[in-house]
C-alpha cells in the first residue's frame, strides 16, 4: 500500500475512540447503563463512582451542560505534553479536581496534571489528538 494512504489511515484511526455524540452529566446520571458509542462502533461506559465525583464537583444547575466524556485535546502545536480542556463546565470540573481557580472556557494543562485527571477520571475523560 502507498505509504501516504497508510499514514492517512493511521491518522484517521488515531481518534476513532472518540464518541459519536457526547451526553450530559445529567443524562449519564439518569441512565441505567451510562456510556457513549464511539466512532469505531464500540461502547464506552462511564464509571458510576466517577459520575458521582463529577456531580459533587459541579453545581447541580450545570449538570446538563457538562458533556461527557470530557475531551483532553493533546496538541503538538502547543508543545509536547501540553493539553487543552475546552468548555466552561468542563474547565470548572477539571480546575476543581486539580485544586485550581476556574477561569474562562479554555484550560491549558500539562502532562503531570493530565496524569492526575486520568487517574481520577479514567472513563469520563478521553484523549483527542490534533495537529
Amino acid at each position, binding site marked *: 500500500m502507498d*505509504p*501516504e494512504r497508510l499514514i492517512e489511515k*493511521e491518522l484517521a484511526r*488515531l481518534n476513532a475512540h472518540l464518541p459519536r455524540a457526547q451526553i450530559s452529566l445529567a443524562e449519564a446520571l439518569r441512565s441505567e447503563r451510562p456510556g457513549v458509542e464511539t466512532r*469505531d462502533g464500540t*461502547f464506552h461506559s462511564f464509571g*458510576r463512582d466517577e459520575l458521582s465525583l463529577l456531580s459533587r464537583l459541579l453545581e447541580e444547575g450545570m449538570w446538563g451542560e457538562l458533556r461527557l466524556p470530557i475531551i483532553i485535546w493533546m496538541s*503538538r502545536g502547543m508543545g*509536547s505534553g501540553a493539553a487543552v480542556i475546552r468548555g466552561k463546565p468542563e474547565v470548572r470540573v477539571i480546575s476543581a479536581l486539580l485544586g485550581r481557580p476556574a477561569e474562562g472556557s479554555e484550560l491549558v494543562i500539562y502532562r503531570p496534571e493530565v496524569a492526575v485527571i486520568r487517574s481520577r477520571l*479514567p472513563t469520563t475523560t478521553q484523549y483527542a489528538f490534533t495537529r
Partner: protein
Amino acid sequence: MATASELSPTRTELIRLRRREALAKTGHDLLEEKMDALVMELFSVLRRMQELRASAFDQLERAHRALSSCFAAMGTQETVQAARETVKSVELEVSTRNLMGIVLPVIERPSAVRNALGRGYSMHGTSALLDRAALEFEKALELLVPLAVAEAEAFAIAEELESTKRRVNALEYILIPRLREAIKFIMMRLDEIERENFSRLKRIKKIMEEREWTRSA
C-alpha cells in the same frame, strides 16, 4: 518508495514529496503523542496493579489463616463438604471502555460478600469459623476481580504501545529519512539542470557574439 534512479527530477515531483514529508512528520508527531499518553496510562495501571496485588495478597493470607482455623475446629472432611455445597457463582456487571482504540473491560465494583444463608451450605453442623473463612475469601475475591481487570489492561496497553512504537520508528527511521533523501536528490538534480542550462546559455551567447563580431569585421 522509488529509488533515486527511478525518481523523475521535476518540480512537480518535488512538491509531491514535500507534501508527503509534511504528512509523515504530522503522523509521526501525533503517534509520538499517543505513545506518550500510552506510557502514562501504563504506569498508572501498573501502580494500581501493585496496590491491588498487595491488598489482595494480604486479604488472601487472612482468608487462608481463617480457613486453617476452620479446618482445625470443624475437621477437613466437613469443611470440604461445606465448600462443595457452596454456591460458586458471583454476579458481575461487565462493560467496556475504549482507551485510544483499545477496548478494555470494565467491572463495576463487584459485591461478592454474601450473608451466611446465601452461601448455600447448611447452617446445621457448621461452625462460625467457616462463616468467617467464607467471608474472608469473598472479600479477597472482591480484590482479585479488579486486579485481574488491571492486569488485562496492562497487557493490552503494553501491546498497543509496542505496535505504536513500531509505527513511530518506521516513520522516524525509514520513511521520513527516505523522503528527505529523495527531496535532496531532486533538489540537487534540479540545481544541476539549472547550472547546465546556465552554462549552455552562456556558451550560445558567446558563439552568437563571436559570429556577430566576424560578420561586422
